[in-house]
């Protein structure tokens, strides 16, 4: 099947304008006749649901949390990019576009990324109007800062809680539409399957997490804004409930999954400390603006940090990348941290950590200035580690954080399944093979506030969408399959907990398909995942019943899907014999151990079509055309 991204013709900076003029409009009186199902209430889902409702569509919004305000976007710390050029430092739409394309290692679409940069300014306007308390200058104007991977000050922020504040803004907009009767809210509802009627996405199957009721919801379009799949690694910075179920179930119903091997490993996280650990905590990479990353020069040097004189320290990012220094993009920072630890220079008990040192910044600006900027992060660090980072350097190590891969979508944000739209982290998106800091919030809100509201109309006005009866075979089949699966899970009476299987899968993927990947390791993972999955279905234990709040059952369903999806992740990593962005194949590197891209053979989006559990997926390629930028070796030196 040929994948058509449907990028509008014309010059890059006129494409979106042209699209908006050419797209067919839905008569305002007809909008209320369309039912839109929005799954997920993070930045992308909440902003989409609110904006569609404002336009007059009838919206149902679903989330698995007890309140839409708790979606994991809330945990984003650092900030949101926008090409406002308030700092007068040379920013422009084109520069944000270029930085994002380059940051993604030339594995994203030009058309999409340019549109993202174009609407970035509108997002800040919108959020400010909602009362988002961004940081301000004394003159009352908005303040910006620089952020990982950028040499400009284009990041807007609300302390270390930018995601929280943006999400509460979108949540407010959503709740306003609930009050207006335009949105029906379904909290504590988890999507278990997609309903596809004659090749068109027409509904979803959900489970009410309080009473176990399996429900059918049909509509004219389905919008998935269900986030990323990084919890496949078990230990990640994601919230416990983040999962792949909605997108994986859509993939099983025919939606293509694109670039699953592009998983971002965030450089500044608190290191793993023990086997009982349930999650890894991210420290905003804004810390890299003032913190200096270093390790001892000599492998095995176990002297404490304060006992190491300057000449015995290796500030490896500053040494290797003098122009970007500690602000290199995430993939570069993470890989280098791994490398120095592999060389035996890692610090802390486990030797899997590097220092992030604020001593120079405190000497320069004073402790109070550092406290004002990063106080909440230093407090969080102390809460978790019991150490005071004003007095001694932090220890950090990379951790799985974000998924650039996701369901394949065209310029309309619609998957190859008509009627299925995918937003935010859930789609394969605009970040290519690596996302720059402060770009996730931008993309989620761009999709929800400023892109989907236009593109969905163009689909609805041209499609023939007769009402779907609850007795339709496709509906009955999907509902029966979802119920059957719940019963299969409840029948598991083995000897190992669901979490143990998740941990085993995660560790395997982290070791074999994490920051650095090679053929042999990936082959090993490919062989082992089906074994873990098989044992899961024989030896996992799921207690309790269906008709009540059953958290073990919920987790079991999500882990079962990770056990299927993990195989695709490895398959994608295995087939991509190049290094690009976050995907580092050891076989493909320069003599200086930098990623070596292969544009001749791999300048495409890999979109995978599901063929059955344990079967190899079928690969479809969307070749990436670069008309404006020239793919170059990404250098931050």
């Amino acid at each position, binding site marked *: 099947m040929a994948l058509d991204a449907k990028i509008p013709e014309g010059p890059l900076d006129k494409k979106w304008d042209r699209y908006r003029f050419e797209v067919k409009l839905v008569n305002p009186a007809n909008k209320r006749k369309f039912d839109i199902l929005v799954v997920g209430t993070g930045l992308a889902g909440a902003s989409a649901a609110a904006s569609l409702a404002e336009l007059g569509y009838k919206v149902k919004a679903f989330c698995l949390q007890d309140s839409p305000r708790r979606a994991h976007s809330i945990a984003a710390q650092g900030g949101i990019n926008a090409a406002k050029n308030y700092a007068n430092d040379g920013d422009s739409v084109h520069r944000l576009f270029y930085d994002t394309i380059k940051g993604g290692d030339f594995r994203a679409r030009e058309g999409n990324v340019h549109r993202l940069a174009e609407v970035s300014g509108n997002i800040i306007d919108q959020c400010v109007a*909602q*009362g988002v308390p961004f940081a*301000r200058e004394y003159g*009352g104007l908005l303040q910006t800062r620089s952020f990982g991977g950028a040499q400009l000050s284009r990041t807007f922020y609300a302390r270390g809680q930018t995601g929280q504040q943006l999400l509460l803004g979108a*949540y407010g907009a959503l709740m306003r539409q609930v*009050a207006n009767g335009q949105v029906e809210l379904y909290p504590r509802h988890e999507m278990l399957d997609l309903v596809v009627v004659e090749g068109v996405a027409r509904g979803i199957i959900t489970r009410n997490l309080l009473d176990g009721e399996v429900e059918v919801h049909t509509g004219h379009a389905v919008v998935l804004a269900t986030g990323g799949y990084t919890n496949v690694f078990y230990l990640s910075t994601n919230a416990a409930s983040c999962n792949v179920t909605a997108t994986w179930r859509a993939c099983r119903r025919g939606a293509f999954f694109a670039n699953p091997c592009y998983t971002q490993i965030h450089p500044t996280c608190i290191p793993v400390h023990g086997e009982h650990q349930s999650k890894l905590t991210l420290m905003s990479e804004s810390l890299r603006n003032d913190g200096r990353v270093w390790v001892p020069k000599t492998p095995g040097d176990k002297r404490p940090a304060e006992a190491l004189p300057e000449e015995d320290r290796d500030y490896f990012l500053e040494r290797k990348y003098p122009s970007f220094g500690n602000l290199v993009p995430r993939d570069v920072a993470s890989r280098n941290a791994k490398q120095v630890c592999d060389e035996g220079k890692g610090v802390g008990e486990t030797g899997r950590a590097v220092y992030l040192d604020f001593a120079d910044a405190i000497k320069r600006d004073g402790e109070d200035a550092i406290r004002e900027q990063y106080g909440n992060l230093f407090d*969080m660090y102390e809460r*978790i580690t019991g150490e005071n980072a004003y007095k001694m350097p932090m220890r950090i190590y990379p951790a799985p954080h974000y998924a650039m891969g996701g369901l394949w979508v065209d310029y309309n944000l619609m998957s190859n399944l008509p009627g299925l739209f995918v937003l935010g982290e859930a789609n394969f998106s605009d970040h290519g093979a690596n996302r720059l800091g402060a770009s996730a919030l931008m993309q989620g809100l761009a999709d929800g506030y400023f892109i989907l509201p236009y593109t969905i109309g163009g689909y609805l006005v041209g499609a023939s969408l007769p009402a779907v009866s609850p007795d339709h075979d496709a509906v009955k089949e999907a509902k029966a399959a979802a119920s059957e699966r719940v019963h299969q899970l409840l029948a598991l009476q083995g000897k190992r907990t669901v979490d143990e299987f998740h941990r085993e899968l995660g560790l395997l993927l982290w070791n074999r398909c994490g920051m650095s990947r090679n053929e042999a390791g990936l082959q090993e993972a490919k062989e082992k995942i089906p074994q873990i999955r098989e044992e899961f279905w024989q030896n996992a234990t799921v*207690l309790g019943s269906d008709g009540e709040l059953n*958290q073990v059952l919920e987790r079991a369903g999500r882990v079962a899907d990770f056990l299927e999806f993990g195989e695709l992740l490895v398959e994608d990593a295995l087939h991509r014999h190049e290094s690009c962005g976050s995907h580092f194949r050891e076989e493909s590197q320069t003599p200086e151990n930098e990623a070596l891209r292969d544009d001749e053979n791999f300048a495409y989006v890999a979109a995978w079509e599901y063929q059955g559990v344990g079967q190899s997926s079928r690969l479809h390629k969307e070749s990436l055309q670069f008309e404006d930028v020239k793919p170059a070796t990404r250098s931050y030196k």
Partner: protein
Amino acid sequence: MNLTLKIWRQKSPKDKGRLVTYMAKGISPDMSFLEMLDTINRDLILKGDDPVAFEHDCREGICGSCGFMVSGQAHGPLKGTTVCQLHMRHFTDGDTLVLEPWRAKAFPIIKDLVVDRSALDRIIIAGGFVSVDTGSAPEANALLTPKDNAEIAMDAAACIGCGACVASCKNASAMLFVGAKVSQLALLPQGQPERERRALSLVTSMDDAGFGNCTNESECEAACPKEISVRNIARLNREFLRASFSHPAK
């Protein structure tokens, strides 16, 4: 370290519920409180017993999902800390801890330590936002906001909606939650057009949900994991009074 835990077990909203004693053995001081509960649950599951239901998600103190009483204190003894960020190094070997769900008429118990906090959402639905449609916003720097106001608004906006303020209040009042939202928007220029309407409707909605009144005990501020100040309650009272006199609908 070893601990004795007395945990509230209640199978369903209608079940009577009771405290059940569990032994937590071999707990590492580096574990978070919820990781300690994970180990208890793991043992329960392997024994075939129903694990303790408790809410949690981000485990980094921002989503507001977690929260229960630890020996009578919401989120436990550490100031400004959610229970997911509370680490076991703050307890002593041999301690006995009592874990109970939030207790408030407006927060019915669902199961064990899980309660229904949808009343807080209903308060926001009543007007805890600025009415602005997507696309109609003016240029972001067109409205100046004094830095000090933005900072105080941000202090209030840091609320994570966990419900600890309600649980720690002897009247089960939600004044700190409501005060935080009303303050945030009353302090910003964007919030001005709906300022009075908002104060009146949020207070009405809070009363309708069955939350109690404030009698100035300040327990809420002490329990708040985001250390939101009771000044926000004072500001809410002022906003409510001001609106009661001046709002055209009154």
